């Protein structure tokens, strides 16, 4: 039986009249790579704030490696490694000074601190930049150092809040690889993103979050199998007529996204055939199509299927 590192029960957070987080309940097992996938504003960052003890919940319980986060915050926090979305580094200090400071905050000192600094710099491949001022770093290097800081005290769970925001594709791949390696070496990872590819390729399980609620939770493969359909997303230069809409409905499940009938999603199990039929249908209506996206079943189409909206909306 797998040990749960993180247990979240009926977690709520209310701001004024808005519930940012609505009754989240999930568990993360030791060594698992768990993804929290949702659009901007879905409540991911608030959830991270709650899980890392930065935000007081309105109600609910969080347990980190068996320690209740709210009754024993110091013990619980020592078990969490947080990699926030912002760089959260001191740009005027060098890499080493940043690590020394954050290491000390977590109670590391002397030889142990040195050993851990050496190790995390190796993991994020910044050993040769130890004495370089952070202000001179590229965004990719800052992201890597951000991760190094989170790993410094050997947390039982590493929480990463969109750790690839604002980096070039090459750095992004390097970051994803290092996180994957960390997970392979036994580090439990909670990862938030709105990039479906990242969630799909890295995560053992994904919780799809929307408007503060988990709307689906399973492995990416199962989610795609259960909810994912091929999808054609079309945008038109003018609102489409009833006749055309009826013809489209024969091809797949049509969802009209806007009131003017300028945007539609067509879900289908046979994306190749549906695409062919649609193009045939549109031949006689030259100039009507503004944009056309054809998507194989993936977490994005799962999200669209579940919410009727795009992850990037």
């Amino acid at each position: 039986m797998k040990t749960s590192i993180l247990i979240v029960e009926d977690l709520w957070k209310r701001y004024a009249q808005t519930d940012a987080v609505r009754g989240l309940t999930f568990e993360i097992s030791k060594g698992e790579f768990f993804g929290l996938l949702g659009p901007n504003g879905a409540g991911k960052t608030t959830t991270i704030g709650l899980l890392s003890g930065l935000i007081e919940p309105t109600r609910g319980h969080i347990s980190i490696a068996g320690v209740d986060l709210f009754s024993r915050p110091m013990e619980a926090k020592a078990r969490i490694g947080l990699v926030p979305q912002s760089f959260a580094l001191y740009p005027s200090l060098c890499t080493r000074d940043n690590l020394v400071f954050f290491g000390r905050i977590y109670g590391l000192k002397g030889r142990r601190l040195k050993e851990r600094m050496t190790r995390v710099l190796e993991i994020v491949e910044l050993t040769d930049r130890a004495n370089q001022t952070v202000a001179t770093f590229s965004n990719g290097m800052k992201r890597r150092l951000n991760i190094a800081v989170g790993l410094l005290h050997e947390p039982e769970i590493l929480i990463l809040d969109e750790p690839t925001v604002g980096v070039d594709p090459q750095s992004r791949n390097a970051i994803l690889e290092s996180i994957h390696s960390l997970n392979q070496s036994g580090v439990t990872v909670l990862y938030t993103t709105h990039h479906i590819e990242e969630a799909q390729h890295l995560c053992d399980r994904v919780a799809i979050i929307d408007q503060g609620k988990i709307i689906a939770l399973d492995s990416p493969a199962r989610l795609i199998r259960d909810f994912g359909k091929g999808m054609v997303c079309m945008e038109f230069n003018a609102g489409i007529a009833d006749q055309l809409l009826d013809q489209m409905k024969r091809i797949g499940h049509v969802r009209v996204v806007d009131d003017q009938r300028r945007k539609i999603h067509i879900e289908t199990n046979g994306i190749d055939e549906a695409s062919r039929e649609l193009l045939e249908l549109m031949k006689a209506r030259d100039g009507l199509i503004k944009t056309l996206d054809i998507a194989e079943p993936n977490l994005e189409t799962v999200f669209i299927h579940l919410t009727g909206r795009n992850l990037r909306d």
Partner: protein
Amino acid sequence: MIYQILAITLKELKVLWFDREALALLFAMPMFFILVMSFALEGVFQAGSKGHPIEILAVHRNGGPIAARTIADLKRIEGLILIETDNGIPLTSDKAEQLVGKGAHSLALVFPEGYTEQVLKTSKVSQEEKATVYLISDPAMNLQLLAAVKGAIQGAIERQVLFAGIPQQLKEIFGTLEGMEGQLDNMLGDTNVGERESSGVDFIHTFPKGFNVSRRPTATEQNVPAYTIFGVFFIVLTLASSFLQEKKDGTFQRILAAPLCKTALLIGKLLPYYLVNLIQIGLMFGIGVVVFGIRLGHLPALVIVSLALAAAANGLGLLVAALGKTEPQVNALSVLLAITLSALGGMMVPTFIMPDLMKTLSLFTPHAWALAGYHDVIVRGLGVKDILTEMLVLFGFASLFFIIALWRFRFDE
């Protein structure tokens, strides 16, 4: 916890070390003020020399010959200019007081009507009937300079009073010698002197009507503590900006995510700025001693005032950090407080020449209490027990600022 506090303190000092603008603001600015303002006021220290003569309004029209001779005596002193008329009209006592009160002149020497007669008959009359000379001075006038002028005037008065008494003394010595009286009378001319003592004149130093002045600081004694206090409160901007920057960069949240209590975080954040304040104060007074030769007075008392002052400044910094949500807000609030409280607290204009309302308002600034504390120590030579009130008020300000700041401070923003 102490280990973590020290870690935050060390980090903060390092970050501050690399923030040249902040350091310039904290150290160069008050140093600049002390140096520039003190050199600008150099004339005050050199006043009384041939190149910088002191003007004294002289009122003696009805004072008689002894008053006139005293004025003539003073005119012979290099560095003094005696002015006896205003627009060609001989000065009166009221006019002279009015001119000093308006700040048009710094000093007025007034010999009242019947001065000579009073001097000559003083010796055998009661103290209340002694001859009197009034020196009216501008309260803002440098004290050392004033002392020198007073000495010169007193010297001239005593000399003339003494000369006036010589014939009588000679009469007493030779009066019994028969036949000498006539010769003596011829020698002394028609001077008709009565008996008097050399100390028979009251020299009263006063201020124009409406001023309420006790012990006043010298320009340097005023400048060094005042600009030091002014500079100390610039920590408000640096400190508040530091909190805002940490929140903006996310480092504040990262620290809060660590197993560290909020108290330790705040102490760790404030401690370096408190230390910087103390270093600032040490440096400023160091310049005061080395460059301008001011005397610091009772050191333990000075340290106590400094500790309380730095606490108040840090408290205000935390308060601004709690109230300011954006960089422009923090900047505006810090500068507004720094300038307004400094002006109100007597950093730019001494409170003793402020109108009563301003004087009352100044009591609501930590600046005024800090300055009063420093003046008690430096100018009045008082000790620890004499500055306890100032210390308590300053720590009271600090506590008030901290309490409001902690009430308003949002850790989760």
